[in-house]
């Protein structure tokens, strides 16, 4: 039995080698189908990981409430209308009244020029409570966060972004130094790790965090806030929380039913959804394309097997003469079509991985190999069997004597 199988395999490979050109054509369809499946599976997983990482970088389970109407789409947000109705006490009410809310971090942000010695830089200053460091996963390279007490006393302390640090203090320890933010001298207590650009296109490394109370009283004399981050407990859906928050804020703002919201609510996921929808659309197209490719590949193998069998009547005849049964003929030709399909499938996997590496490098995605290789091989095998079964049955129709004398 072992000899039989190795013999069939040997013959199958011999045939593959003898008829390189036509076999290559026959397996190309399968190769392309598997290649596109594998490449797309890997690349889309890389993209998803990148999106996940971006969400992680922004902070998990966050709902963002912003004053006025804000339109969030793609990779940016756009302010449609301003509103001064969002207050600090709204944030307190939300934290106290709504179940599932773990933390609320109100903020007020604004672009200001900052200056140290002779250099100046436009930075984004956020007045914020010190909980922000926790919920937005902000790590420091040096120094400390400002504290709740410093916030309560409206002290002028700052945690600065990495680029601010690089610009102002190329050869200096920044901790304890004062920079001028707008016109307010502010003491640096910490420097954030490099974070890059966030979803809104905001360069996180040009950020300066100061205590919210200090900001509202000393930097920019306001009694309202620009927005707040609402951190949701695990187990509560972000979408559900958005609905709850909307109803609640409309109620405390006394918005009449016919009036529009004077605030906007969105999540990181909302912003990235368009990207994920794009991936999903491409994945549907990929499945369609590779299905068509598999069909064409199957037809190719089918045609080549029919041709091969009609060319090999003598072989079938002599095999039948020396004792092969119809079953043996079927097994032999089926194993040939399966091997052709498998070679195509393996080629497709290799090609798919090459494409994955190239695209991931060019696109800056993490390289993830996640396509189920056994699945690709099983599909190839099934195509091989389906494409080979009819030709193999045809092969058994040659009676030994007639096959030899035709």
């Amino acid at each position, binding site marked *: 039995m072992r000899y*039989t199988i190795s013999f069939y395999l040997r013959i199958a490979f011999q045939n593959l080698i003898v008829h390189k050109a036509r076999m290559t054509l026959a397996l190309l369809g399968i190769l392309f189908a598997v290649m596109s499946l594998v490449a797309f599976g890997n690349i889309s997983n890389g993209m998803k990981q990148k999106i996940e990482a971006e969400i992680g970088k922004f902070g998990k389970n966050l709902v963002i409430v912003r004053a006025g109407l804000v339109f969030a789409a793609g990779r940016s947000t756009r302010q449609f209308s301003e509103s001064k109705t969002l207050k600090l006490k709204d944030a307190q009410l939300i934290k106290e009244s709504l179940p599932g809310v773990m933390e609320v971090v109100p903020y007020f942000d604004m672009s200001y020029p900052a200056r140290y010695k002779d250099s100046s830089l436009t930075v984004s200053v956020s007045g914020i409570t010190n909980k922000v460091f926790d919920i937005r996963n902000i790590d420091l390279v040096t120094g400390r966060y400002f504290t709740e007490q410093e916030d309560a006393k409206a002290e002028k302390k700052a945690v600065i972004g990495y680029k601010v640090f690089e610009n102002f203090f190329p050869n200096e320890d920044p901790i304890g130094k004062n920079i001028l933010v707008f016109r307010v001298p502010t003491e640096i207590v910490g420097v954030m790790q490099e974070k890059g650009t966030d979803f809104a296109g905001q360069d996180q490394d040009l950020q300066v965090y100061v205590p919210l109370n200090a900001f509202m009283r000393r930097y920019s004399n306001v009694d309202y806030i620009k927005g707040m981050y609402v951190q949701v407990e695990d187990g509560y859906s972000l979408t559900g929380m958005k609905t709850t928050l909307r109803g609640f804020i409309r109620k405390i703002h006394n918005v009449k039913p016919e009036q529009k919201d004077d605030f906007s609510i969105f999540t990181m996921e909302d912003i990235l959804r368009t990207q994920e929808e794009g991936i999903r659309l491409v994945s549907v197209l990929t499945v369609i394309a590779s299905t068509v490719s598999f069909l064409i590949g199957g037809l190719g193998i089918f045609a080549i097997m029919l041709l091969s069998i009609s060319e090999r009547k003598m072989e079938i005849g002599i095999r039948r003469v020396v004792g092969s049964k119809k079953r043996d003929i079927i097994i032999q030709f089926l194993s040939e079509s399966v091997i052709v399909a498998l070679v195509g499938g393996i080629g497709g996997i290799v090609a798919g991985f090459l494409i994955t590496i190239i695209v991931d490098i060019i696109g800056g995605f993490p390289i993830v190999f996640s396509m189920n290789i056994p699945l690709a091989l099983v599909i190839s095998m099934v195509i091989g069997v389906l494409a080979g079964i009819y030709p193999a049955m045809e092969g058994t129709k040659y009676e030994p004597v007639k096959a030899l004398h035709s």
Partner: protein
Amino acid sequence: MIDLRNIRKSYFVGDRELPILKGIDLSITKGEFVVLMGVSGSGKTTLMNIIGLLDKQTEGDYTFAGTSVDGLDDERLADMRNTYIGFVFQQFFLLPYLDAIENVLIPIVYSKKGIKHPREKAKMLLGRFGLEQRIHNKPSQLSGGEQQRVAIARALVNDPEIILADEPTGALDSKTGGEIMDLFQMLNEEGKTIIVVTHDPKLATLGKRLVRIEDGAISEDITT
């Protein structure tokens, strides 16, 4: 070994009956060397196909190795061919993409005899026929005589009792053909039953027994 009783074979063209064999009675026992001679169209090839279990008679009884083969199905016949008969053909019928030794080994693939060390055996047979330097050559790299010797090795590899040869020298020059016939004689001396089908009168005296077929019937059966 082989016992044919009143074998008739007809082909039907439309509703017209075309008789090919018209009542053949023939017994061949173990160890014989029979030359079945007849001109083209005499029915000798049809008779050989029936003897070789490749075709079925229309009428009559055929007992092969003690078994009546009349009611046997395809599978059973394939097994019996594999077990008892080694076939040699005029056109050799070697598979072009396999080398000599792989060609010799084909019957082993379907064998139930459990032949030990088939590769060594195939090598030994090829060596015996002077092909030890040729075992990894493809048929296209071999001369006609060499190809026929590979085919004979293939016929022998599964230890059959009978060698059935259809015009084995037909595609060879007379010198090479003579060498092939010598080979059959040697195998016969070792105890194999040999049946050679031919139209070539020069081969008539090479066997121990000559059976002449004419127009679908045996016209002469002489033991020399």
